């Protein structure tokens, strides 16, 4: 009996010695209830956001139908408002590249910008296009509508003329109609998948493997923050990835010229709400990254990552608020405000991509190309 005890003690010593050589901390068991978090994400954030997008796109379809019957200033303005309403909600779903959205490359058909004016015009001139083709990703979605509603001619009268007196007015109307209908049908498909079958798959995938829901959504969230928000909305126009060569024409909603900042702030708002588990369009607050990190902090005595991340997101917001409502103008007049915004967002990326995933013991499933 004593022998056994002694050997057990010795083995315990061995285990202690081994684990301490990893840097002095042994990892306590992570008993966080992932399922509650997945249920909160699905039921209070993801599905309600898709439902709202679907409904806003329904309104966009109706406004488009009215406009294609009577292309006048009033109906154009109503259509533009419907476009912006839907575009703002879009900022809440772009990050969820999972399930049918991932399979269908949904976001690529909804928001790749800048739109290709050449491809759009060529589609309209030639007809017979297939918007589901990969080649037409940059001739579809919100950016294509940005062009069709704001950029297709110099001013509103000239824009209306494209849909009324232009020799190919029917072609323009048809294309506008097809783009809107395609966005609606893609969104319906993704939403229906969530409400009929995918929700249950999602909330029951509670393990910690590379294909588990939490791991995938965590990667999606960080990837979106890094690429969709930080790089696409700020870094690319500001020349961060082109050795300082500026691309004012690559801002989101370039042709509109007024809303790139509104959309970016909406995207940051959506990201922060998701991080904190706040219900879409509601006030309730369920489990999300913030609670997970708080839990991990209590069992490891680590840093208050939730506070660090929220503070840094707030710092990014304050910086973005100093930027011109038209990012394109800002790039042309004083690009520093764009790069300062990018820098604050990058600090969030570091917290998410290094500190948060390390605390959650999740590996990042994508890597950046690095120089040499």
């Amino acid at each position, binding site marked *: 009996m004593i*022998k056994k005890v002694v050997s057990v003690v010795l083995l315990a010593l061995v285990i202690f010695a081994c684990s301490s050589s990893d840097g002095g901390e042994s990892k306590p068991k992570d008993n966080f209830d992932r399922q509650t978090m997945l249920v909160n994400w699905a039921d209070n954030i993801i599905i309600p956001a898709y439902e709202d997008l679907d409904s806003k796109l329904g309104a966009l379809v109706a406004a488009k139908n009215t406009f294609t019957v009577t292309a006048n200033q009033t109906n154009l303005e109503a259509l533009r408002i419907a476009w912006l309403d839907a575009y703002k909600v879009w900022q809440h779903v772009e990050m969820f590249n999972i399930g049918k959205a991932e399979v269908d490359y949904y976001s690529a058909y909804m928001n790749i910008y800048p739109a290709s004016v050449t491809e759009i015009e060529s589609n309209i001139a030639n007809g017979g296009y297939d918007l589901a083709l990969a080649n037409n990703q940059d001739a579809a979605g919100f950016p294509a509508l940005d062009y069709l509603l704001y950029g297709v001619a110099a001013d509103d009268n000239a824009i209306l003329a494209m849909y009324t007196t232009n020799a190919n007015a029917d072609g323009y109307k048809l294309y506008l109609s097809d783009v809107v209908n395609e966005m609606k049908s893609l969104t319906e498909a993704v939403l229906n998948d969530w409400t009929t079958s995918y929700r249950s798959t999602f909330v029951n995938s509670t393990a910690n493997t590379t294909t588990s829901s939490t791991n995938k959504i965590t990667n999606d969230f960080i990837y979106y923050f890094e690429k969709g928000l930080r790089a696409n909305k700020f870094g690319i126009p500001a020349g961060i990835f082109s050795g300082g060569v500026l691309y004012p024409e690559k801002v989101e909603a370039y042709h509109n010229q007024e809303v790139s900042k509104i959309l970016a702030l909406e995207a940051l708002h959506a990201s922060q709400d998701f991080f904190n588990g706040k219900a879409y369009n509601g006030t309730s607050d369920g489990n999300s990254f913030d609670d997970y990190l708080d839990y991990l902090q209590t069992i490891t005595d680590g840093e208050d990552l939730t506070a660090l991340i929220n503070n840094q997101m707030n710092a990014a917001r304050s910086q973005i608020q100093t930027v011109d409502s038209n990012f394109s103008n800002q790039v042309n007049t004083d*690009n520093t405000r764009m790069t300062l915004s990018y820098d604050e967002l990058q600090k969030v990326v570091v917290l998410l991509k290094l500190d948060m995933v390390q605390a959650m013991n999740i590996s990042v499933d994508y890597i950046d190309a690095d120089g040499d």
Partner: protein
Amino acid sequence: MKKFLSMAAAAVVLFASCSDDDNESNNIENPATYTFTRNGESTVSFGGQTTRIAMATELVSALSVSTNTKEDLLAMFNHQLGEPDFTDVNLNTSDKNVRSKVAASADFFAANTTDAIAIKADFDSWISEQADNVFVNWNVSAGAGVAGNMQQLGSTTVRYFNAKGLELNQAVAKGLIGGLMADQMLNNYLSDAVLDAGANVTNNDSDVVEEGKSYTTMEHKWDEAYGYLYGAEENPASPVLDADRFLNTYLRQVNDDADFAGIADEVYQALKLGRAAIVAKNYTVRDAQVAVVRENISKVIAVRAVHYLQGAKSDLEAEGTVDYAHAFHELSEGFGFVYSLQFTRKPGTDVPYFTHEEVNAYVDALLNDNTNGFWDVTPETLDTISAEIAAAFGFTVEAAAN
């Protein structure tokens, strides 16, 4: 009883093998020279660094050839694959360039693109001004407010200055020692963010090499740091120094000062032991060497900054005729090293010894606060800056000056 003993023995063996990781270097095979192999094949590779040092060398030389155009010079700085910018055709066929790696470290600039852009713009403007203002005045005598040439007293050496007395090629060359070499080395390749990125630690622990390569990613990152210091050496495994006109040479110069003798070997030994520690998966020893390299490479920049500022000061205070050509040459070198201070790295911290803002204040004090820049700079200003730098690094102005 036998069972107990054998279990105890096994446990002790296990204990010993586990605790190895905690003991300094007893499991590390530290080779005599920077030579590392896996299955008989060398695992050391830093071609990109050798290429960039060669590009920087051609650029700095080209800044002294007044027939070059601004476009020629800027193209050498920001080379694009296939463009015939260099005399060495191997450089022309490279997809690398100098500009993209200036102020580009993960630790200092990934979330500070605003300063990174401003720093790149400084280099662009020095290069542009050399063509715009200095080349066109190549045969004009320089004076306060006038760009042109000046000959050193008692020498055939002619130097070329802008209207403020700054030798722009020196600003570029010495600025690159910090902005390219030290920043990439200390704040990028030796940083945790790079060495331990992604699955680097797991892969290094299991000897998972990069596809088609003989080295792990962590080994390679370390070698790239090594390459920014020794990449121009004929035999980089056993460096002899004076192999380039950048960090490598100034490490030798500081080492030649009796007050800092031994610094070159200290850096080399730390880089070698750190690399050996990576092979042995001993990251505690690795990180200790990072601190040694950061401290000493930073010190090279600081010592040379003070050295040149003090050299200029004694020229300016000379009895009789002042050798402005020599004084401003030293001041220009000192200016470049002062500029490079923002890329140094205080060991154990995330910050340089002098921030971007502090360095900009020195730049203003030397060059911009007076109408005619160096022509108006006072010995007091040079002493103040020298003393602040020396104090931050813990050496004396006198030690660096002689």
